[in-house]
């Protein structure tokens, strides 16, 4: 085990390999408050990458309803139970990561989902789990809550899948930090499936190898965002590259939201993988739940989000506004600009869309427009 710096934990930690960060690190931000669980992202991924034999059950991208839904079943709560109660001290994690809690003979603490755990994605998770008191909808606060959690591989800085592979079949691409699994080398031991706490590596029973999200790297290489990003109906996603906190660049939209405004939070940072998909936490979820899922600082993030200033609101408007990766941004007046590295304008988005009132009665033809396109 080597000692490595994990800024999400505010401390060093143990990892199987020494610290070796890529030249650039792929990262993403998902706005949980805008997701409607339409699963368009899921289908965009599915039809692009996993339509083959042996991939029937694979969802490299999935959306699940929290706290009731899981894919695979119980992926997070099972591991949290295995890990046991752990503590944060402010922004410093004082508990054990999955690497530090590894059992004798193992490289990481993990568990392996059974076939049935993959069998029923989304089934029943939106059903009402209990009675809602009459009038609860008007009480001003949610008596019952849930939110949609869209998930892909986190392309972690310290991937547990990579650490656990005894053959070194998984690696981080040095050019963009995307975690890929070498299909010519894998022998299907499923150690990665067991070790990945997010359960984003899948075993293909037909080829006998494991497979995972590749962040659509052929698109990334062309400066384009992945399929699940550009097909998102709710425009909840933004792809880009993240810097280390000490190198944060406010002109970089990912850096701005993660490091400068501290609005976007990693998923289960306490597990120690330094995941690179960040979430704008749900605004209506009990703080304790959000803290467990997104780490310290969620109260600040929710407060900032609820009272977004022009810069913040404008930047959120860039989400889903272009297929191109937006490495730089700026706001000028009522417009937000997505820029290339050289400052070239890629996209221009108004801070507020103009309102057009469309009368129900068309005065020219004297017909009602109701239900007419």
């Amino acid at each position, binding site marked *: 085990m080597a000692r490595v710096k994990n800024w999400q934990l505010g401390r060093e930690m143990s990892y199987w390999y020494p610290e070796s960060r890529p030249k650039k690190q792929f990262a993403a931000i998902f706005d949980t408050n805008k997701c409607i669980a339409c699963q368009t992202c899921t289908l965009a991924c599915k039809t692009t990458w996993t339509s083959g*034999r042996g991939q029937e059950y694979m969802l490299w991208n999935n959306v699940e309803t929290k706290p009731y839904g899981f894919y695979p079943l119980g992926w997070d709560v099972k591991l949290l139970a295995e890990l046991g109660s752990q503590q944060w001290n402010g922004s410093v994690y004082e508990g054990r990561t999955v690497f530090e809690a590894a059992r004798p003979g193992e490289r990481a603490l993990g568990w392996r989902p059974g076939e049935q755990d993959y069998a029923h994605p989304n089934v029943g998770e939106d059903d009402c789990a209990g009675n809602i008191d009459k009038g609860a909808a008007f009480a001003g606060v949610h008596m019952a809550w849930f939110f949609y959690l869209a998930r892909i591989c986190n392309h972690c800085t310290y991937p547990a899948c990579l650490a656990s592979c005894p053959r070194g079949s998984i690696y981080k691409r040095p050019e963009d930090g995307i975690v890929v699994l070498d299909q010519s080398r894998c022998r299907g031991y499923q150690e990665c499936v067991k070790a990945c706490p997010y359960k984003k590596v899948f075993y293909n029973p037909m080829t006998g190898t494991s497979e995972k999200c590749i962040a659509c790297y052929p698109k990334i290489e062309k400066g384009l965002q992945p399929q699940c990003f550009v097909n998102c109906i709710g425009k909840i996603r933004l792809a880009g590259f993240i810097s280390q906190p000490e190198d944060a660049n406010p002109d970089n939209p990912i850096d701005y939201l993660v490091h400068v405004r501290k609005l976007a939070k990693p998923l289960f940072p306490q597990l120690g993988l330094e995941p690179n998909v960040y979430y704008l936490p749900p605004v209506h979820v009990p703080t304790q739940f959000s803290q467990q899922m997104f780490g310290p600082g969620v109260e600040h993030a929710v407060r900032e989000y609820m009272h977004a200033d022009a810069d913040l609101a404008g930047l959120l408007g860039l989400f889903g506004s272009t297929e191109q990766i937006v490495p730089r941004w700026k706001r000028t007046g009522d417009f937000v600009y997505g820029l290339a590295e050289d400052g070239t304008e890629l996209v221009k988005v108004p801070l507020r869309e103009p309102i057009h009132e469309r009368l129900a009665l068309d005065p020219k033809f004297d017909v009602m427009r109701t239900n007419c396109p």
Partner: protein
Amino acid sequence: MKSSRIVLVVSLTAAVGLPGCSQSQPIVAPVEVVVQPSTVELPDDPLDARWDSVVAFPAALIPQDMVEPRQLRVSTREVRVRALSDGVRVAFRLEWSDATRDDMPMPAAFTDACAIQLPAAISADVPAPQMGEPDRSVEITLWRASWQATVDGRGDTIQDIHPNAVPDHYPFEAASLESGSDIQRAMQQRYAPARALDNPMSGPREQPVEDLIGHGPGTLAPAATTSSTGRGKRVADGWAVVVTRRLPEGLASGKRTQVAFAIWEGGSEEVGARKMRTGWAPLLLEVKP
């Protein structure tokens, strides 16, 4: 082809131990194999009656607890080894107890398997028994129950695992594509990335065995070709498997090399480094007068 009677001797070191043997049995015992002249083929069926006359060696298995992921629990304790040679090839018959047949390829399911390991070069200074060393490789032949099932006729579709499964659609089976055409097969290949990259693991298989080269833990790689053959069958209390491979280069009658064995019990989630294994055992190819 020699017409003399060749005896292949498999013996085990005292260090490996022989649990289950009575005190009256010698620690190192020969396995005598009578090989008919060139017209006789080595039996490839583990249930072939000719194996009954070959002395079996009980090889004690120990957990692989040297490298992560380690096997920390004792599962299969012993493999009984018989060996025959015709002077060109050598056939090992391995038999071990295993209450469950584990040969289905599924998430979190693992296959029963066995392997035979030999040093790539005959030398008194043998490579490390743990998959060899960087400059001293080992040759391994691996048999898997899941591969055997495929060779025996099980298909590799989801319906072969779950007969009632109903996949919506595979793009490479679109009506607009002529079934079996080059375009259709190329498209199907693209949706099986391991096959597209010629990973020998990924099938389809003609043999239930694979020849491999090891240069140390984590280095296992397919040999240029697999020339070995194999066949495994369920027996009363487990598996019996015959693996036939070429004789180690330079192993003439009367000379020795080393051999090691490994067993995976799929039902105990044994896979890769999680296995029961032996240390090196002397292997003697002997000519009987």
